[in-house]
């Protein structure tokens, strides 16, 4: 009996302990003590402190150490090794939750996908190294709709249609507190849409820090403005202290996302509490993306189904030019095109500044800078979105490894990462990389395959390129390219940063007649600038004829028959003039055509003036004839390709076609580049055997600025590209035409057999094309695609196929083609996949079910392994300040700022420091002076001088000096600050 009781007790104990274990909250990550000023917990808004916080926010520990790279090591001896530093890289799918433990247990060496900001403390605790990069950024997005009385359609008040209330919410958000409490100090407080502490931000560093000081947390100030504005809008506070409008409570519907990393729920709860502190009743509507998008995207803002949404936006690499962000994130003409943006009514000045920036209406970089300076405060005053944090992503790894990472977007988007990853103390070895389950989520093909960063990370190790993106500045270095020339139209704001690009200006840049400007998919040949000029002439003639025919139409008696006759007559005239055989009868007599004609007649009849009616008639007739024309008069004829705003000439080395080899053993050839050019056009052209309507828009967008390409020489390969899009950094304007098709690198023969399979409607390059044709989405690495590709490879060998023979035939012979196909066949036989590249590693095996990819070193790679060694870790800087703790009013003073490398502590060369600025803050946190540092040595030492006239304006009391150093080799600046006391 006793034993029975014992067993029962044992059983109950076991069950109870498990339930308790399951219910227990996870151990909290160690957090830094929140900023002293943020004494009020978000759940206790009434206890919020009245005093403003000292501002601006100090960069957090995380921001001061963006890449906690391993300790510096002795420079290795000159290596003779070619290809990757490692013998093998094994990629596998790993659960991010266990990534740190797995690294500690040596199951993996690196978790490349990166962990969220709140995991930084765990990474440090585990004594692992890590890279840091920008990730998602969060905001509070407001419903801006309001009539003249700031009401929704049903008469409810929308406080956030008032810009001043939106602006006031900036003071109601303690970004430091959010960063410390929710993200354990691993994020960056964010006030602007610009990426905090990256290129544009650092260019505006004085203005940005000043505004951050101005908008530092001050709930009382927020309340004061809200009280004033709400009262002015006719709202009153009820007995319970809550706002009422027309006798009803002003209830804020707050959409809070609870999916993703889960922190938006905490952000929402925090801000909901602050709103309640300001006297609003708040209804929290929590949900995942799919629950809330029908409301904030899908509903009409004037219905007022929501007031605030916890917005989240993605960062995609190190963006050096964020001038379009103001239009995108605030203005009614935002390309986002959803009602909440179109209903925003910005300050006209903000609208103009945003438009000028987005449309590039500036002639010098200084003008651009001035516009950005104006836009920053205007954006905070608008505050359609109130920005909260720039999240950081941390990729942990064992400290015996060296890993480089794009500071903008992480290890997996860093093309250079596989080129530099190595063990510190040895050449060779095997690295195990853990990543997410998106490794093989979609099939890999180079033309329109998997678009996941994890897939691209593995693919990058196998690929070469014309230029190498700099992971720390976002600029480009020559990889296979040797040098480049950029000729820009005079007055174009562009600058050169690196010496491999020669920049010059010309008043007019003419596109040569023989430059290729477009592609004829039916006859499979390039169209030249001369063809374009001819097409334009023909198009203008047809247009003139259309105007002439329209002039004969009796507008008052316009009916369906008259419109059909107009179109038919125009088609006949076009056929006569051009020799084309356009037949519009079928299109016009179909049910759809009849309906279109009837609709157009009705639409035209409703127009007010005859001129409008004539223009609409001519436009319709031209569109109808153009739609039936299989030629290029109506497409190319509408483009003006006679001149361009830039001409970029890229020069490849003379021995490139001898030294660079594909993994299947074939030598790189001009045909690989030509195939890349053809695919740029052919895939998105109606009439092509491989046409995919999903990419037609991409091609249309490309053609809106592309003006032409010309092969100047094939030995050495020299290519000139004409374009109207000009980035302000010269290096980013160099088009390489490297045979990388957007989703991977590939030799021309691989693309050729893929094209054959697509043309035969047995496979598709893209997912949409696959669904429409009811075939498989092509995979070069597995599944049913392989047999089909193999079959077409055999056919190509048997037929000695030269794809696009009229063009490619000039660059490859039938025998050379067969040799290429045979090389690919052998590659497939050896490796059971078609993934072929020129990179420092090759894809050895891909076990798709198991989620494992293995890349091995390519010993035939042309470059030595150490070519990119200096990029092994980010050249981040640290700042130190030395100077008086006391200042006297009216008395000049000097501080000394010293900049060193964060990793080694060595002096940061002055020549690598672009600018040093310092700011003085008074006791309220307001900026009282902005000055520039003066270099006093070559070793990163600057003097910060406070002139007597500036000191005369200081008021007695506490103050602070902050210095910021902007570096040339890395986009992230270094900050530090020091407190002082001003004596009378």
């Amino acid at each position: 009996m006793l034993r029975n009781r014992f067993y029962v007790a044992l059983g109950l104990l076991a069950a109870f302990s498990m339930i308790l274990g399951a219910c227990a909250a996870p151990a909290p990550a160690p957090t830094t003590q929140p900023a002293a000023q943020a004494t009020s917990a978000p759940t206790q808004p009434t206890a919020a402190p009245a005093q403003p916080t000292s501002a601006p926010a100090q960069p957090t520990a995380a921001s001061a150490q963006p890449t906690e790279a391993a300790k510096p090591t002795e420079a290795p001896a000159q290596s003779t090794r070619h290809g990757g530093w490692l013998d093998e890289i094994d990629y596998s799918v790993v659960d991010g939750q266990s990534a740190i433990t797995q690294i500690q247990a040596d199951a993996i060496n690196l978790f490349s996908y990166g962990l969220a900001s709140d995991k930084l403390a765990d990474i440090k605790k585990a004594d692992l190294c890590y890279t840091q990069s920008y990730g998602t950024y969060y905001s509070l997005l407001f419903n801006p709709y309001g009539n003249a009385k700031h009401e929704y359609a049903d008469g409810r008040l929308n406080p956030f249609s008032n810009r001043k209330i939106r602006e006031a919410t900036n003071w109601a958000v303690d970004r430091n507190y959010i960063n410390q409490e929710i993200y354990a100090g691993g994020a960056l407080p964010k006030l602007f849409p610009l990426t905090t502490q990256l290129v544009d931000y650092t260019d505006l560093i004085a203005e940005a820090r000043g505004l951050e000081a101005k908008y530092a947390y001050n709930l009382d100030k927020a309340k004061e403005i809200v009280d004033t504005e709400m009262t002015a809008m006719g709202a009153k506070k009820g007995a319970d202290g809550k706002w009422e409008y027309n006798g009803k409570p002003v209830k804020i519907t707050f959409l809070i996302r609870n999916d993703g990393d889960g922190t938006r729920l905490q952000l929402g709860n925090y801000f909901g509490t602050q709103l309640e502190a300001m006297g609003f009743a708040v209804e929290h509507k929590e949900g995942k993306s799919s629950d809330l998008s029908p409301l904030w995207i899908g509903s009409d803002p004037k219905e007022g189904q929501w007031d605030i949404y916890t917005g989240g936006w993605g960062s995609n690499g190190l963006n050096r030019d964020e001038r379009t962000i103001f239009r995108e994130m605030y203005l009614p003409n935002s390309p986002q095109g959803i009602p909440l943006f179109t209903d925003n009514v910005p300050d006209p000045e903000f609208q103009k500044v945003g438009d000028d920036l987005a449309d590039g209406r500036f002639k010098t970089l200084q003008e651009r800078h001035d516009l950005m300076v104006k836009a920053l405060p205007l954006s905070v005053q608008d505050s359609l979105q109130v920005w909260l944090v720039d999240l950081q992503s941390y990729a942990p790894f064992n400290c015996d490894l060296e890993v480089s990472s794009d500071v903008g977007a992480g290890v997996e988007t860093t093309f250079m990462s596989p080129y530099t990853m190595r063990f510190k103390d040895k050449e060779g070895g095997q690295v195990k990389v853990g990543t997410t389950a998106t490794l093989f989520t979609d099939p890999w093909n180079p033309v329109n395959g998997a678009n996941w960063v994890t897939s691209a990370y593995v693919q990058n190790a196998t690929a070469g390129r014309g230029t190498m993106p700099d992971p720390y500045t976002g600029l480009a270095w020559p990889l296979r390219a040797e040098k480049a020339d950029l000729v820009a139209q005079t007055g174009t704001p562009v600058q050169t940063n690196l010496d491999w690009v020669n920049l010059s200006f010309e008043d007019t840049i003419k596109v040569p007649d023989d430059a290729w400007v477009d592609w004829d998919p039916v006859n499979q040949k390039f169209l030249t600038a001369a063809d374009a000029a001819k097409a334009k002439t023909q198009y203008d003639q047809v247009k003139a004829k259309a105007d002439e025919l329209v002039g004969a139409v009796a507008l008052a008696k316009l009916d369906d028959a008259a419109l059909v006759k107009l179109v038919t007559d125009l088609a006949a005239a076009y056929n006569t003039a051009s020799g084309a055989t356009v037949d519009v009868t079928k299109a016009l007599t179909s049910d759809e055509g009849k309906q279109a004609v009837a609709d157009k007649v009705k639409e035209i009849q409703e127009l007010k003036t005859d001129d409008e009616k004539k223009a609409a008639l001519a436009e319709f007739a031209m569109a109808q004839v153009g739609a039936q024309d299989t030629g290029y008069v109506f497409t190319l004829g509408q483009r003006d390709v006679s001149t361009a705003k830039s001409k970029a000439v890229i020069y490849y080395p003379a021995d490139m076609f001898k030294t660079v080899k594909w993994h299947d053993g074939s030598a790189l050839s001009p045909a690989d580049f030509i195939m890349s050019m053809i695919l740029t056009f052919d895939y998105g052209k109606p009439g092509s055997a491989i046409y995919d309507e999903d990419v037609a828009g991409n091609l249309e967008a490309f053609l809106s600025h592309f003006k032409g390409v010309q092969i100047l020489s094939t030995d050495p390969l020299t290519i000139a590209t004409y374009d109207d899009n000009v980035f302000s950094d010269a290096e980013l304007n160099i088009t390489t035409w490297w045979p990388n098709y957007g989703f991977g690198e590939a030799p021309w023969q691989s693309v050729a057999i893929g094209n054959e399979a697509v043309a035969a409607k047995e496979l598709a390059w893209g997912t949409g094309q696959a669904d429409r044709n009811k075939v498989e989405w092509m995979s070069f690495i597995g599944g049913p695609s392989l047999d089909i590709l193999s079959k077409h490879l055999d056919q190509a060998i048997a037929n000695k196929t030269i794809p696009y023979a009229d063009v490619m035939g000039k660059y490859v012979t039938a025998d050379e083609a067969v040799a290429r196909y045979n090389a690919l066949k052998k590659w497939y036989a050896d490796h059971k996949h078609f993934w072929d590249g020129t990179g420092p590693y090759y894809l050895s095996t891909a076990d798709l079910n198991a989620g494992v990819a293995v890349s091995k070193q390519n010993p035939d790679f042309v470059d030595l392994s150490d070519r990119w060694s200096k990029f092994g870790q980010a050249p981040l800087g640290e700042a130190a300040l030395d100077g008086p703790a006391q200042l006297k009013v009216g008395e000049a003073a000097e501080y000394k700022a010293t900049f060193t490398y964060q990793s080694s502590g060595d002096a940061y060369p002055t020549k690598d420091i672009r600018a040093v600025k310092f700011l003085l803050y008074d006791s309220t946190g307001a900026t009282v002076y902005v000055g520039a540092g003066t270099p006093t040595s070559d070793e990163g030492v600057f003097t910060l001088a406070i002139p007597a006239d500036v000191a005369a304006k200081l008021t007695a009391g506490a103050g602070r000096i902050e210095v910021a150093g902007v570096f040339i080799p890395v986009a992230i600046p270094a900050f530090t600050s020091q407190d002082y006391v001003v004596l009378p």
Partner: protein
Amino acid sequence: MSSKSLAANAETQVRSEPTAKKSFDDSTLIRMTKYTGIRLVTMAITVTIGVYLTILIANMGGYVDTIMRNEIRDNTTQSILANPSFRTLSTEAKQRLIQEKITSEENRLGLNQPFAVRSLGYLTNALTLNLGRAMQMTSDQGSKEVRLILLERLPATLLLTGTSELFLFFVSVFVALALSRKYGGWFDKFTIALSPTSAAPPWFYGIFLILIFAAVLRVLPFGGLVDVPPPDNKIDYALSVLKHLILPAASVIIASIFLSIYTWRTFFLIFSSEDYVEVAKAKGLSPRDVEQRYILRPTLPTIITSFALLAITLWTGFTLTETIFLWPGLGITIYRAIGLYDTPVIVGSTIIYAYLLAITVLLLDFIYALVDPRVKIGGGGSK
């Protein structure tokens, strides 16, 4: 599992009541044909209703169209705005591109058709086992065919579910039978005492097993299907898979074994205390004869039912356990399909389960009649 089997047994007991005297023209063949026909029709109706309900639920009665439209707009807009290739496009060009992509994606997913029409298409395809193409998902091998998406995950799923569930079933039954003979013994009490351990799900034990055997002892892998890099040799590959199977299978087994034994043991005890068993014992029959003739035989329909239902549930996988161990099984696939509102994949897995269940239930009726002389096919229907 056990509750299902007991319920099925109860049903069997009801239907195995002695039937009324059959009429002279009620031949066995006609009776069975009639019974089979009625059962097939009712099952067809049940399956049709069940599958259509699944379609309606998976699509929230058509509201998923609204969700998907907004998600498409959001995703498309963000991807265009974040794409460096499009950064310098004019706003109009960006807007045009975004709209084209949205339209194209909506058309691809069939959102240009009313949901009612599409739902009937899904139903027809499902009932005819034309599983069609997934809307969003692809198989690991890159195929969009639902058939391949499901089939590809089947081996790993069956390996995990089959190993763990079959082990659980047979061990539970045999240990329970033994315990029922030694009722009140220390092992019996030990099992009863540990049966509450099944309150925790397999993933709960999975986390502990990973911590102990992978993180601390480092003798077994954290998860996945095979070593990294995968062995080239097929035998080594198979051994590697088995090594990776140990922890997930163990977590499933540990989470259920004691409760399962306890349930079966209680079930056998009920039969062991029947009068006819006592009589058999009194007659001096050996314990083995008593067990085989007087305990196992009357419980056979229940055991078979349990086994049959177990066999078809193997198909569904263990979602959370697979997630914890990154085991590439069907559980994760179906869970992901639900998250992506990928109706063809959801319906595909449902229809296969529905057909398997219907066929199993029908076959069980006949098997009952074979193993239990008290049961007669269609016997209850002619009353």
